[in-house]
């Protein structure tokens, strides 16, 4: 298992180096040292140069924007693109005399997420102020939950493919340290030509859930898989739409390396990661950079670095000098947040003022891991298939619709969905919803195949025709292109006989014992019939004739 794992992650490492060229201080692959993550969670290199092995340590801080109508502490709207400073209330602009009022939906979202990640929910949590100066934080502090957050001590299970063929998956777990509610800051647009910053406060005050993961991961691939799984969970719960491109999911990685048995090394924080793919790249680059630096006798600074996606490397960030003193203090304007469960529910309280953890727990939807297990059980598909089904938005529904409308077994249908449909969509950068082939059309086609009215080669031809989206049904295309299988036994027998008569040498070889030549004859029959013969039937006929 370890060797197999070494192959997989090691391959990722070597590829990451080769990509990191051009303008960027790409770490030189000294003797192709491959640092790989094995299933036991440590990282052991191939040790080709004989130097001591390195253990990378990766921890993540993830900020997920809560999907709600209004902001965390004020009644202004939450919306992605809007005229600048149009979704800003007096509180968001931190005008004097305004006070925070907590949004119930944000509390529920945080509790849902905590329950989904197996956390203990703190029935009493507190709000604090975290002070720092920046133009997009008008109050000069951010209201967060530093001392007692809303949820602690959870875990997230995710799966990785050992090799890139998706045939072996291993499940890993990362511990969740805590989940806390906090405010988002505004947006700064830097105008370097005029030496100024333009500030848009539309995003200031939007509710965020900060998910802090323990440093249980050891490479970029693991970090990416964990974030992908968290993204799916958040989207399933509906607590966040978690679209990284729109800034609804932001990830900062803390990376350090050390020798096995020694204490953890100095860590650096990597920011400005805009997609899951870049997360893997950034983490891998940073690990390699730190290893290089330490092997050259240098030291690692406890600094914040930004990931430059064009160059594929991390660079030190300007505005972050040394350790910040955030001067945490309790938020004086907010009493503690009290949550209830079925046992502690107060009798006379207004329902609207009560957040009941058990009530929320009962209404949690099926998490991705549960959905996958159900798919595997219900349809007999492989676990790897269920991963792909859930990874693509809408693909599971598509698959289930096709299965409902066709007699073909789900195990065969899944092949058509994952190999043909999905690869076509990927080639043309389409989502499942934009597919020109609907589940109904595909089911129709698969029925024709199942009833042996067409061969599978013919079916692929029909599918290619259906992609054009001209509105024809599979049956129409089959008739148009004359792709139906020849059903007339006599006609087939005639053609088989004709081929046998024409290929004396081959016939003799077969009769002498060389069965492989039979395939050539089958091929000839196929050519004669322009692909309209069922190869299994043809083989039977030929064998019958040759044995006469």
């Amino acid at each position, binding site marked *: 298992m370890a060797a197999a794992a070494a192959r997989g992650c090691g391959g990722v490492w070597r590829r990451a180096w080769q990509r990191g060229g051009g303008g960027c201080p790409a770490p030189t692959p000294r003797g192709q040292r491959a640092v790989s993550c094995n299933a036991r969670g440590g990282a052991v290199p191939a040790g080709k140069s004989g130097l001591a092995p390195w253990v990378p340590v990766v921890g993540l801080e993830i900020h997920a924007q809560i999907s*709600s109508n209004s902001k965390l502490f004020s009644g202004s*709207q939450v919306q992605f693109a809007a005229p600048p400073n149009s979704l800003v209330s007096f509180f968001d602009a931190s005008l004097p005399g305004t006070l925070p009022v907590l949004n119930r939906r944000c509390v529920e979202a945080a509790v849902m997420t905590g329950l989904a990640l197996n956390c203990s929910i703190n029935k009493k949590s507190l709000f604090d102020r975290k002070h720092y100066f920046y133009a997009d934080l008008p109050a000069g502090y951010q209201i967060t939950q530093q001392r007692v957050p809303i949820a602690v001590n959870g875990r997230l299970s995710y799966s990785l493919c050992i090799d890139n063929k998706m045939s072996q998956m291993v499940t890993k777990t990362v511990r969740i340290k805590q989940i806390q509610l906090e405010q988002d800051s505004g947006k700064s647009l830097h105008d370097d030509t005029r030496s100024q910053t333009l500030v848009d406060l539309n995003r200031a005050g939007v509710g965020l859930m900060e998910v802090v993961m323990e440093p249980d991961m050891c490479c970029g691939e693991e970090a990416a898989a964990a974030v992908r799984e968290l993204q799916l969970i958040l989207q399933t719960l509906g607590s966040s739409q978690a679209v990284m491109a729109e800034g609804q999911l932001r990830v900062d990685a803390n990376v350090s390396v050390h020798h096995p048995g020694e204490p953890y090394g100095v860590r650096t924080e990597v920011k400005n990661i805009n997609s899951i793919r870049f997360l893997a790249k950034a983490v891998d680059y940073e690990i390699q950079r730190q290893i290089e630096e330490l092997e050259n006798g240098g030291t690692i600074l406890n600094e914040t670095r930004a990931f430059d996606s064009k160059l594929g490397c991390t660079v030190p960030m300007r505005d972050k000098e040394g350790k910040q003193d955030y001067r945490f203090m309790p938020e004086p*304007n*907010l009493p503690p947040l009290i949550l209830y469960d079925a046992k502690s529910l107060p009798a006379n309280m207004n329902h609207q003022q009560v957040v009941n953890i058990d009530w929320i727990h009962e209404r949690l939807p099926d998490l991705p891991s549960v959905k996958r297990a159900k798919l595997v059980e219900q349809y007999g598909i492989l676990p790897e298939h269920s991963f792909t089904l859930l990874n693509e938005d809408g693909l599971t529904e598509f698959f289930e619709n096709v299965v409902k409308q066709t007699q073909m077994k789900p195990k065969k249908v899944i092949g058509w969905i994952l190999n043909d449909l999905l690869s076509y969509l990927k080639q043309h950068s389409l989502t499942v919803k934009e597919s020109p082939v609907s589940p109904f059309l595909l089911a129709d086609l698969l029925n024709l195949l199942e009833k042996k009215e067409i061969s599978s080669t013919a079916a692929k031809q029909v599918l290619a025709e259906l992609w054009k989206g001209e509105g024809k049904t599979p049956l129409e295309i089959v008739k148009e292109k004359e792709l139906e299988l020849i059903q007339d036994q006599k006609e087939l027998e005639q053609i088989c006989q004709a081929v046998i008569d024409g290929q004396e040498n081959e016939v003799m070889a077969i009769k002498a014992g060389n069965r492989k030549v039979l395939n050539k004859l089958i091929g000839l029959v196929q050519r004669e019939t322009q692909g309209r013969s069922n190869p299994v039937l043809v083989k039977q006929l030929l064998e019958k004739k040759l044995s006469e």
Partner: protein
Amino acid sequence: MRTLYFGRWLRAAPVPPPPPLRVPAARAVSAAQVPPRPAWQQGERRSPPQVGQPRRSGAREEDGRAPGGGTATSARSGLPLTVEVLDHLERLALVDFRDSEGVERLQKAIQFADQLHEVNTDGVEPMDSVLEDRCLYLREDDVTEGNCTKELLKNAREKVEEYFVAPPGNISLPKLEERETFLQGS
């Protein structure tokens, strides 16, 4: 330069640059005298209330004043007022201690606050808000505010097409060695 939403002015003909933003000096307060009596010492000088056992043994005074002279320390809390600490405070709060009198005033302020240590709080949960026995009100998730761009921008001295204008980045105090401050000498 990232694209601005609705930033029409970017595509317009180049306009002359606006007058340079006047960044207020880090210490705009003129070199005024340190006031004779700070705000927290307005009342008569009297000895602090003797409530319970003082938590720290060591330098005990009758009237709460530090033993005179000697090193600049805050006797009770034990944190020595080194140059690093003073520089850190100046950097965080943009306060200028200016001269030794300012540092002394700081010392006295710390001593005044240290009187809190006189109270024995063993076994008592800290209170973080006078609201701790109140219910935290939960608001329904409805949109009730916003859409007051004009009013908000009325407060802005400079604006660019509905954006607030700020300096390009944080301008932090130069390092201790690189600026003129009395702290360098101490």
